[in-house]
């Protein structure tokens, strides 16, 4: 509630460095930020629950206490709300027993009314309370059953269990995608602040006060928003859980692959969390310049269909024969990576005048929502421009359909996007679809050829902010025979790429800004391209 307009200032690369004294040792920290971020910059982690770098500071968990030397002696202050000032003297638990005890006490209070049901909690393993307990707590339990726990939840949900304890609110259905566990909530206010300041749709609130405070929607309303699953990410405990991931997998069994979502031209940074060869969930990966810590439900839930309805791999000979000597229209879809585009360019060079490259989508281009969507379904549009490939000439192709003998679509579900607009393409006699899925275009084509999906390939894309971002391959491909599009296409061209990087090097020949770049020189947060078209 308090000061909801106070967004934390985060350090950047250009932050001025100031000298402060941490535990009587001089360190240089970013000067325009809060103490918590400054300490993080010099490698001192401060446990916190309510603070989130992309949410306004509410300062109510009191977990990030540090001692500050002030005019009235050493005072306990919260690191998340204390601005860095040159010369300030800070004491962390490393040197101050008072800070250590204060954090321990807060940790103990935090767990007074928290049910210790970690064995059945989906958040166990990535729970802030567990992490803080290992760091700041580890105290001997002093609570005894007689002291009891206070039921904090909606009074309408409470019941008395077999031990005579008031319980309730274990799985409150607060929205179509989210379940709330009122007992696990530690009232950190993060979800409320997310809905208020990021989603800009105040659907959640803290009702009640004292230790019967509980999270609630407004009476009769449901939590339903394009970004509502982000509250499960910001929730430090297992209070907010996503229905799709509930009881699916223990999080410590998941492997994480950092990659880019190719649903949208913002190129939201994501983690693909996978195990046993399938994706279990998609989580936002923090990138301050792109999607911060948020991804939309559309992006997040897209993975559910990645393993289904896949096309099988085929021998290349069939395609070569089908292409024959006729005139070829190559259509590249928005999810094509820079590597795929390099291969397409290579194929065009090989075929010479017989081939022409088209690009684009029949989907409508929306407007940015200011959170984590640019609204443009053509993910690599800037990459198309960079590679000198038209990104919006499908209408032209439909008009001139009769000129071509062969239609080769790469990652482009033209018939699925707009069957009416794509109808004209049926005039082309031989229609070859290179696609991950058995989609409408694959069904309409004369030859459908399975390739790897973007979640399974290594590659690069350029987002709408001209940021070159790296995709990594998650080992979740259902069929070992499937190959990435660039491999297939380059083989059609007769000069097969053996690795993604080889394709990327080739792309450097078409787009000079990419020349000389190595994959390692692209940071996990991307590389801003100079002189790009976008």
């Amino acid at each position: 509630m308090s000061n909801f307009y106070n967004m934390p200032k985060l350090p950047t690369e250009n932050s001025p460095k100031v000298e402060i004294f941490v535990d009587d040792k001089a360190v240089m920290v970013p000067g325009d930020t809060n103490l918590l971020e400054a300490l993080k910059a010099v490698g001192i982690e401060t446990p916190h629950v309510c603070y989130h770098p992309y949410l306004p500071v509410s300062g109510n968990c009191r977990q990030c206490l540090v001692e500050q030397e002030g005019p009235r002696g050493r005072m306990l202050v919260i690191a998340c709300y204390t601005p860095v000032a040159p010369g300030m003297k800070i004491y962390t638990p490393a040197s101050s027993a008072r800070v250590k005890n204060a954090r321990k006490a807060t940790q103990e209070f935090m767990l007074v009314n928290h049910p210790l049901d970690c064995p059945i909690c989906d958040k166990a393993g990535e729970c802030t309370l567990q992490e803080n307990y290992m760091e700041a707590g580890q105290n001997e339990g002093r609570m005894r059953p007689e002291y009891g726990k206070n039921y904090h939840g909606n009074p309408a949900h409470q019941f008395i269990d077999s031990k005579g304890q008031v319980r309730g609110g274990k799985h409150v259905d607060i929205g179509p995608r989210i379940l709330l566990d009122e007992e696990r909530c530690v009232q950190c206010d993060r979800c409320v602040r997310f809905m208020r300041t990021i989603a800009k749709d105040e659907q959640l609130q803290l009702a009640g006060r004292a230790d019967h405070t509980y999270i609630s929607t407004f009476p009769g309303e449901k939590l339903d928003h394009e970004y509502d699953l982000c509250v499960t990410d910001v929730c430090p405990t297992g209070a907010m859980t996503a229905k799709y991931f509930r009881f699916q997998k223990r999080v410590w069994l998941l492997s994480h692959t950092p990659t880019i979502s190719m649903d949208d031209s913002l190129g939201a940074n994501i983690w693909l969390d996978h195990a046993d060869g399938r994706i279990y969930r998609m989580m936002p990966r923090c990138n301050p310049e792109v999607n911060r810590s948020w991804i939309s439900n559309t992006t997040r839930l897209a993975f559910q269909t990645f393993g289904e309805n896949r096309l099988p791999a085929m021998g290349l000979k069939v395609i070569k024969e089908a292409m024959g000597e006729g005139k070829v229209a190559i259509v590249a879809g928005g999810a094509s990576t820079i590597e795929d585009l390099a291969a397409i360019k290579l194929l065009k060079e090989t075929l010479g005048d017989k081939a022409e490259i088209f690009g684009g989508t029949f989907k409508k281009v929306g407007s940015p929502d200011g959170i984590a969507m640019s609204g443009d379904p053509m993910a690599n549009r800037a990459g198309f421009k960079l590679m000198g490939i038209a990104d919006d000439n499908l209408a032209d192709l439909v008009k001139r359909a009769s000129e071509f003998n062969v239609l080769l679509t790469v990652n482009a579900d033209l018939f699925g996007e707009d069957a009416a607009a794509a109808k004209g393409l049926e005039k082309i006699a031989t229609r070859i679809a290179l696609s991950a899925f058995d989609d409408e275009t694959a069904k309409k084509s004369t030859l459908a050829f399975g390739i790897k999906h973007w979640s399974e390939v290594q590659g690069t894309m350029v987002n709408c902010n001209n940021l070159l971002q790296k995709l990594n391959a998650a080992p979740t491909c259902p069929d070992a025979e499937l190959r990435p599009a660039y491999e297939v296409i380059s083989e059609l061209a007769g000069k097969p790429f053996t690795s993604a990087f080889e394709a990327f090097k080739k792309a450097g020949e078409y787009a000079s800004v990419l020349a000389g770049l190595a994959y390692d020189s692209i940071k996990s947060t991307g590389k801003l391209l100079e002189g790009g078209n976008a």
Partner: protein
Amino acid sequence: MAECVKVCTENFGKGAQDIEVYKKLGGYANISERLFNMSQFELIDYVQRSNLRGRGGAGFPTGMKWSFVPRGTGKPVYIVVNADEGEGGTFKDHFLMLEDPHRLIEGLIIAAWALGSRAAYIYCRGEFLPCIESLNKALNQAYAAGYLGENICGTKFCFDIFVHRGAGAYICGEETALINSLEGQKGQPRLKPPFPAVSGAWKSPTCVNNVETIMALPWILQHDPSEYAKMGTPRAGGTKVFCISGDVKNPGVYEAPLGTPMMTMINEYAGGVVGGKLKAVLPGGSSCAPLTAEEAAVATMDYECLASMKTMFGSGAMIVINDTHNMVDLLNVLGNFYSHESCGQCTPCREGTGLLHRILNLIVDGKGHDGDVELMQSLTGGFGGVTICPLSVSLGGPVASYSTKFRADFDEYIAKNPDHAKPRVQETYRPGIFW
């Protein structure tokens, strides 16, 4: 009892709710050429010289508080009167507003002139219906008489006063929670800085003052500031309205100079302790540490003396307790009150006050164990200075001091449990159907 000058309670029982009576008693004499000829700085300096300190509990010098309000920011300056009297044992503002509402209005006009304010809000506790009625009646009369509204007394000065009914939350007596509540948000204290003097109500400079502070202004302006300062102690001037309650013969509201000995207040003003011998005194409302009878014998009622005795002057609400009471019962009542009134923001207060109350309940129910008191004392160690507002300390302080000063009372209750010497059983959860 020496006859003392009455600053705030002068008109009590004289029917001063009516503007005509109030004017006949010398009211609104300050709203004159003399006030409007004074510059803001002169007036603030005048108040500073009177040594008036805030009467709400913290005792911050009023003139200094006013001088913090920035000028020329392009934003309006609001005055908010804190009439959300929630502290246990305090009932002075209630009577002040009920008996003499015009003095509050007159004081507010003076404060408005000092701060260059256009509007003031009286945030009144919602349960004080007679007060609100009395205030609204007085406001209507003052508007009709031209003391409020546009062009007061023919000058270009315009000023409005609004009475806002709170919903009765204790925490809304904290100034930033009060401002949140006034704005229509949940009454929870804000993080500071920014302080309200810089960014308060609607992000504008806001000065929050107690009712009694404002009501002292007309007298100060009528007389010389040194005359007011002379009445109190060197660091805090003037008289104070004390509310004495508990086991005394005549509980009520009494005005006395600061620095009056505590026993004088109890014996001469309130008629002495009844029902037993004096056991303890809470000098400044329910949230302060109690003084034992021996300490009370030497204490004087002012900020410095009580601070030196590790308690506080607070709102001047003395609660006198005789020896028929067990302090654990009193502490349990406080536990109930503060655990219910915690706003639910900071973890230590939200979870800790409730836990302390549950432990106190066990002790009172005769289920206490040895070590419970030590546990409570240790838990209150996690309260000190770590929360946004001092509500957690309002329970933590009493728990720590009651259990130190009146340990025998706790032991008496714990001894009622025949098994008190055994340690509490730690329940172990065995693998059940889930494993």
